[in-house]
């Protein structure tokens, strides 16, 4: 078990390192390719030549890429001092870089944005699990019923509507639509949970719905298919034949078979969403990781882009790892097979 655990952790770390190397390389090479001003990319200021030279010197643009990468990575552990050619700043460990446009360490910005994304993701996950799995189970149990057909149609539509379109429709209806639907006449504005829990919840509901609609549809389809497959297995037929109450059969056999794929999927989806709910956060202008990254990308705030991409990969990999470990604990075959 220990070997399995260590193996998975080593694998996950490899992935993070690969992602960070690729990210780093791309954002180092890109400005060179486009002929843009490197110092500008790093500091976001229309720098004078002297200033640009000072920045280049401080960041070591002249050094080989592997050395620059090493400096960046060791900064995460040891912290580093940075400069935009004017202001010396200290970026304490763990230093993921410093945004001179925002005059803040990247980690601090990520730390501030993460709770927003966490709230969005977890809230939506609860909703989609609740509705998705329930609808899937009911559909499978009452296969062919009106409910099943309706759920199938709704879930198909659900997976076919882009979440930003749902989002725009919702925003339109809730802020500018017919009077009886205009529940948010002042707009949907994010409020931190610690400041105003009720306001936070009210603001979260529309984006939750957008995300949950999409994922609930996916989960309902998956649950239904898995349940149906399981219900056709011999041991479940036997259970029916034995005259066990439906609740027991569904609960003991059906749900047990549905759980592993759902756990896997939840892990992956939550991981991916934590890495950045870009579309929804941008549309609703919630100050989460996704919007942080998106704004950094469009304003070419390089340190932030690198920081968020690496943290995003870390979250995805971490979620994968948790799923893997859960599997290892739940299913001894897995750890033996590896």
């Amino acid at each position: 078990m220990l070997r399995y655990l260590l193996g998975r952790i080593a694998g996950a770390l490899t992935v993070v390192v690969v992602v960070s190397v690729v990210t780093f390389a791309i954002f180092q090479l890109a400005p060179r390719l486009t002929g843009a001003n490197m110092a500008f990319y790093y500091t976001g200021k229309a720098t004078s030549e002297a200033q640009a030279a000072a920045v280049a010197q401080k960041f070591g643009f002249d050094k080989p890429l592997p050395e620059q990468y090493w400096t960046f990575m060791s900064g995460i552990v040891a912290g580093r001092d940075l400069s935009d050619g004017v202001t010396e700043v200290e970026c304490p460990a763990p230093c993921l870089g410093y945004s001179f446009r925002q005059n803040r360490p990247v980690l601090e910005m990520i730390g501030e944005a993460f709770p927003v994304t966490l709230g969005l993701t977890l809230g939506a996950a609860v909703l989609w699990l609740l509705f998705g799995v329930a609808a899937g189970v009911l559909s499978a149990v009452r296969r062919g019923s009106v409910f099943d057909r309706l759920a199938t149609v709704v879930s198909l539509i659900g997976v076919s509507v882009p979440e930003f379109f749902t989002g725009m429709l919702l925003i339109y209806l809730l802020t500018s639509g017919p009077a009886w639907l205009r529940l948010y006449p002042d707009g949907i504005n994010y409020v931190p949970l610690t400041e105003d829990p009720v306001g936070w919840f009210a603001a979260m509901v529309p984006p939750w719905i957008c995300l949950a609609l999409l994922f609930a549809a996916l989960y309902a389809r998956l649950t239904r298919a898995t349940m149906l497959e399981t219900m056709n297995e011999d041991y479940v037929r036997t259970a029916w034949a034995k005259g066990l109450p439906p609740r027991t059969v569904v609960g003991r056999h059906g749900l047990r078979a549905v759980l592993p794929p759902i756990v896997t999927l939840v892990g992956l989806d939550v991981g991916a969403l934590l890495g950045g709910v870009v579309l929804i956060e941008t549309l609703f202008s919630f100050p989460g990781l996704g919007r942080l990254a998106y704004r950094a990308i469009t304003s070419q705030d390089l340190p932030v882009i690198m920081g968020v991409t690496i943290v995003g990969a870390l979250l995805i990999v971490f979620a994968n790892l948790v799923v893997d470990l859960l599997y290892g604990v739940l299913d001894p075959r897995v750890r033996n097979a590896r």
Partner: protein
Amino acid sequence: MTGTQAPQVARSPARLAWRRLRRDRVAVASAVVLAVIVALSAAAPAVCALLGIDTERHIELLSLDNVGFPEGAFGGMSADHPLGVEPKTGRDLLALLLYGSRTSLLIALGATALSVVLGVAFGLCAGYFRGWVDSVLSRTMDVLLAFPVLLFSIALLVVLGSMGNGNGLRTLVLILVIGFFGFPYVGRLVRGQVIALRQREFVEAARALGASDRRILGTEILPNLVSPILVVATLTIPTRILAEAALSFLGVGIQPPGTSWGQLLGSASHVFTVTPTYMLFPGLTVVVTVLACNLLGDGLRDAFDPKTN
């Protein structure tokens, strides 16, 4: 097993699937809808000419006083402009949708083709050869799956998009980025199928006859992958459509004066509380297309593999 009288015409599995598909009314309807959309976009210039619309700017239809929003109700809907006109440019929305469909479908199909080709190549090799080949290829796909793909695509597009001008290059970059990041899903599926197939006895029979790896892959295994690949491709197209829409929506994909479904939705995201119709029509087009693709994909899957439902 015995007993049934075999008809004279050979019923290949594909023919049987086709027959089942034809009986699936939902799938047939979806296919018709898709065919209409593809035909309309392919013949966009002719259709526009027929309807008397074009993608020229009609500034005279816009309010100079109101930030360039169309004059008149419902985004400037009129007999001349059935779906209204685009804010700020006055271009006919229907014409934009038709031309935008070309870009969106081109990108979706191109990216799907790339995903499928890469996925099949990786999956075939990983599944058939196993061992270190499998380890290397599977790990590569795992790493790609762990990428924060959307963020990464945005960043790549910002970087690559600034290298040149014009939507031609952007279209190509979009196809490459979307297609590349999508291939591990196809690759995993193909790998699983190959692993299952290579243990089948007909593969052993071919080996017993002395068939080479290439012949086994090409003649024995690949024909059996056609239907899962076809199904996965059909079900992949909608996700590629949505990916293009998402990236263009965020403003890093197709840019004006070029147009695509995502670009239109992205432009609409600035102004949809003022002109909701500008958001509604492109959005509905995406939904209908994606839905039709999904329904057809489901139908194809059922037709090829009647056991699952």
